[in-house]
């Protein structure tokens, strides 16, 4: 496939890795923010191609992993209500809530459907006016334009039996939270290329200069990731801290203006609650007042406000894994009581979760 194969060829990948080795003189820790990149790094063994001095730490950029368990409980409650068709992306089904997951709820008779796009849920709403269609709208800035459009379209068509249960997160505030943490070891970032395709990268410029960290907007293919690492290390070695764009073929500085305008029209920024991490200011999205009637929590009651922070089983360190402080192998449950078939924490469920990626490829 064009735009894929050429970035997976062994020759250039080896050459890029060799260039990284040549310029690295000191120890550096770089975080890839996005779970998609974590997946590619572990799958292709890219971290093993880097000099020992360079370590990659895996970031919190997997929406399946950071959706709080009380929201999953709420999803289950809604899905089991009479007259509801509950729609979700497939990988949410096996994420444990505090008592069970959506798959169990489906077994108990909930009408739960896996959809590929929020527009599929909207079509179901048109087709079944007698049912309430609720869509589990989880994601980062990449997914927000799709959810915004589904809600906007529902309002244009005056569709009344459609609502979304929102679990939406913004990346830049999470990066700042990581940088301000006492335990922080991250010296440079690979920013998530597709988040930037939507949002652009101007928002990272103040972060790079305030915290003196280089930020490189990076794509998802092996050669992209290695070039991202190369550019990041080159900045670190030269003592620079700016924003660079590795993913030139897909990302503009201002992002996708049409998508940004729709997000802005439908959503407003609110505090975000991240599973395993806790609350981060200005890191979540909620529907604006004009669209509040499409909020599933308005129709079915708000999710129970659990104790903030960690709600995992006591042995699970996924909160630390998500912040790049610990690696999956450092968890005593990893591969023992916690596997993709019996996940104990969210980072073991999604293929973009660091624990699942390590389990699958290591």
């Amino acid at each position, binding site marked *: 496939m064009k735009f894929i194969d050429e970035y997976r060829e062994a020759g250039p990948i080896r*050459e890029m890795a060799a260039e990284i080795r040549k310029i690295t003189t000191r120890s550096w820790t770089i975080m890839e923010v996005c779970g*998609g990149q974590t997946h590619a790094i572990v799958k292709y063994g890219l971290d093993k191609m880097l000099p020992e001095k360079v370590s990659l730490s895996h970031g919190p950029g997997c929406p399946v992993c950071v959706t709080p368990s009380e929201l999953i409980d709420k999803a289950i409650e809604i899905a089991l209500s009479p007259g509801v068709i509950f729609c979700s992306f497939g990988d949410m089904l096996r994420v444990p809530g505090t008592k069970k997951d959506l798959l169990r709820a489906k077994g108990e008779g909930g009408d739960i459907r896996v959809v590929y*796009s929020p527009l*599929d849920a909207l079509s179901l709403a048109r087709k079944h006016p007698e049912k309430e269609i609720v869509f589990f709208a989880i994601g980062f800035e990449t*997914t927000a334009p799709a959810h915004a459009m589904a809600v906007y379209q529902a309002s244009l068509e005056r569709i009344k039996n459609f609502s979304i249960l929102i679990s939406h997160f913004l990346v830049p505030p999470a990066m700042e939270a990581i940088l301000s943490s006492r335990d922080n070891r991250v010296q440079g970032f690979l920013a998530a290329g597709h988040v930037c395709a939507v949002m652009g990268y101007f928002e990272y410029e103040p972060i790079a200069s305030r915290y003196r960290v280089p930020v490189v907007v990076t794509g998802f293919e092996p050669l992209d990731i290695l070039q991202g690492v190369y550019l990041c290390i080159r900045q670190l070695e030269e003592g620079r801290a700016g924003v660079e764009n590795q993913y*030139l*073929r897909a990302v503009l500085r201002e992002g996708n203006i049409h998508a940004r305008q729709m997000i802005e029209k439908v959503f407003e920024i609110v505090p975000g609650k991240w599973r395993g991490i806790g609350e981060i200011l200005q890191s979540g999205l909620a529907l604006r007042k004009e669209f509040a009637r499409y909020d599933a929590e308005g129709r079915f009651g708000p999710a129970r406000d659990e104790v903030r922070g960690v709600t995992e089983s006591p042995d699970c360190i996924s909160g630390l894994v998500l912040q790049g402080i610990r690696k999956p192998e450092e968890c005593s449950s990893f591969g023992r009581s916690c596997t993709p078939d019996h996940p104990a924490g969210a980072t073991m469920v999604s293929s973009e979760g660091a624990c699942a990626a390590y389990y699958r490829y290591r």
Partner: protein
Amino acid sequence: MCLAVPGKIETISDSPLITGKVNFGGIQKDVALVYVPGAKVGDYVIVHVGFAITLLNEKEAGRIFETLRQIKELEEGDS
């Protein structure tokens, strides 16, 4: 779920949103093209949960290889 992949636009229509058939290495899917209003048949887009979020720039696509060549030339010049 965040994996967004490149595909080639094969047809474009508007009903009720601008939609197109996009080919992902042999598999065709309906994709909303509302956010890439300038897209034409034959263009490549990155698609995420049924929406094209960006148009791929053919001219920039080869830059990575050019840069790699330049880095190496620079080094050869140094030594």
